[in-house]
């Protein structure tokens, strides 16, 4: 310190003597001969081995505890179905894998614990997802028959031109590689959805799918042949007004399933004709407003469909 004033002040401070106990404790410490602490310095090799052992243990624990990759059981029914390059007698198909059957092969897939899918000959299907809330297959081409007992909207089948959404049902789905196909429902309901277009297909009814159009208009399997043919032309946009005329003329009470779907697939002048024909076949139920129905109010249409279903 170079401050002369400070030095002077410090020099004026009184001296304080250290207590005797300090000296005795120092002497005692010297007497015991405190040795300096040893510092452990492992060798490099020891550190490497320790790290390797820890890594190995970690990998083992991770492997043992990891969630198993989602997979469904597959059983051969006939011929030589294959998952990837593996011929299957009893095996599994994992998410991302394809199951392929040739012309003489069939297989059955267990959809988790909610149902089964039978895979017909000349069919190619892929397991897309298997997780809570979504069990999904992709049907590239061929035919499957699904029987599912689960809450609605848990099981899905994608095709090139639609997604079949299970609503608690059993059905058969055919598709070719381009997207043309046929859904036939034998139990419950299936919703066919694609690019904002939806068809609700109940048991006893079928629905075609079309490339670039998606789901067609559902019809009951016992509908008059003239109605089914005209409906096919209508869905492809090739029937003009004549196709709709035929559908309306040949529709029975049960074919209000078809007419109900047509309400949202025609322009307003035709929609009034469709509406009139439905009401002619089945009187408008209580709670269904004609104005709202023609405006395609979704709640009104839902109520109307639910009431019409009692007549199918």
């Amino acid at each position, binding site marked *: 310190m170079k401050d002369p004033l400070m030095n002077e002040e410090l020099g004026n401070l009184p001296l304080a003597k250290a207590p005797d106990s300090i000296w005795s404790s120092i002497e005692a410490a010297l007497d015991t001969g405190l040795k300096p602490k040893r510092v452990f310095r492992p060798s490099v090799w020891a550190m490497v081995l320790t790290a390797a052992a820890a890594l190995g243990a970690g990998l083992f624990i991770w492997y043992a505890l990891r969630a198993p990759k989602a997979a469904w059981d597959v059983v051969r029914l006939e011929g030589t179905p294959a998952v990837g390059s593996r011929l299957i007698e009893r095996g599994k198909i994992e998410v991302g894998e394809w199951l392929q059957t040739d012309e003489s092969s069939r297989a059955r897939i267990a959809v988790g614990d909610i149902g089964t899918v039978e895979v017909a000959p000349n069919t190619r299907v892929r397991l897309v997802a298997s997780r809570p809330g979504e069990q999904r297959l992709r049907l590239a081409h061929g035919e499957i028959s699904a029987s599912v*007992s*689960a*809450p*609605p909207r848990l099981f899905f089948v994608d095709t090139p031109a639609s997604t079949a959404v299970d*609503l*608690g*049902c*059993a059905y058969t789905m055919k598709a070719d590689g381009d997207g043309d196909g046929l859904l036939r429902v034998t*139990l*419950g*309901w299936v919703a066919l959805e694609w690019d904002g277009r939806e068809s609700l297909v*109940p*048991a*006893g009814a079928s629905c075609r799918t079309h490339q670039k159009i998606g789901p067609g208009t559902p019809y*009951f*399997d*016992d509908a008059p042949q003239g109605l089914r043919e005209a409906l096919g032309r209508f869905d492809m946009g090739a029937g003009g007004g004549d196709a709709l005329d035929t559908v309306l003329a040949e529709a029975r009470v049960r074919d209000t399933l078809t007419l109900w779907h047509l309400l949202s697939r025609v322009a307003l002048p035709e929609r009034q004709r469709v509406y009139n024909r439905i009401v002619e076949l089945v009187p408008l139920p209580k709670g269904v407003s004609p104005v709202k129905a023609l405006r395609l109010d979704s709640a009104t249409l839902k109520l109307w469909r*639910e009431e019409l*279903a*009692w*007549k*199918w």
Partner: protein
Amino acid sequence: MEMVRLLLACAAIPVVASAAAFSLTIGPPVAAGTGAKVTKTKSAVFAVRLEECDNLDKAKISGTEEGIVEGARISAPVTLSAAESPGVYVVSPVSSQGQGVWVVSLSATCGSARAGAIVPIGAGIGGAGFLRERIKVFSHPATKEQIDSALKALRGQGN
């Protein structure tokens, strides 16, 4: 006295009208909707809805399947499973209807009102599992004679 009779008659009208309105509607199983309860009844052959019942909580419905198989008269309870919508049930027979002719006889109450129905069922009967054209609906449970008559009519038609 005439006035008393008139008042009594007027008082009875609402009860009578209510009893007459209560009825059963029969439809395919899909009419019961898409709820989880319905998906578990894959053996259902038709759905039934209680109509014009103000107090569905206290309404009751039961049913039996009645058949004639190789000349023998058979009767057994059916399973009625409640659907998601109040007053709607799906009906599942217990017996196999592979042989003979069969109907389901339904009996329902809503307060003091009663209703019944006879619904022909069985393998080969249409795609819906029941014969809509032959359904009979009553304002009371079907009698044994009515059930026997319905079965004989089915047998006579070769069903």
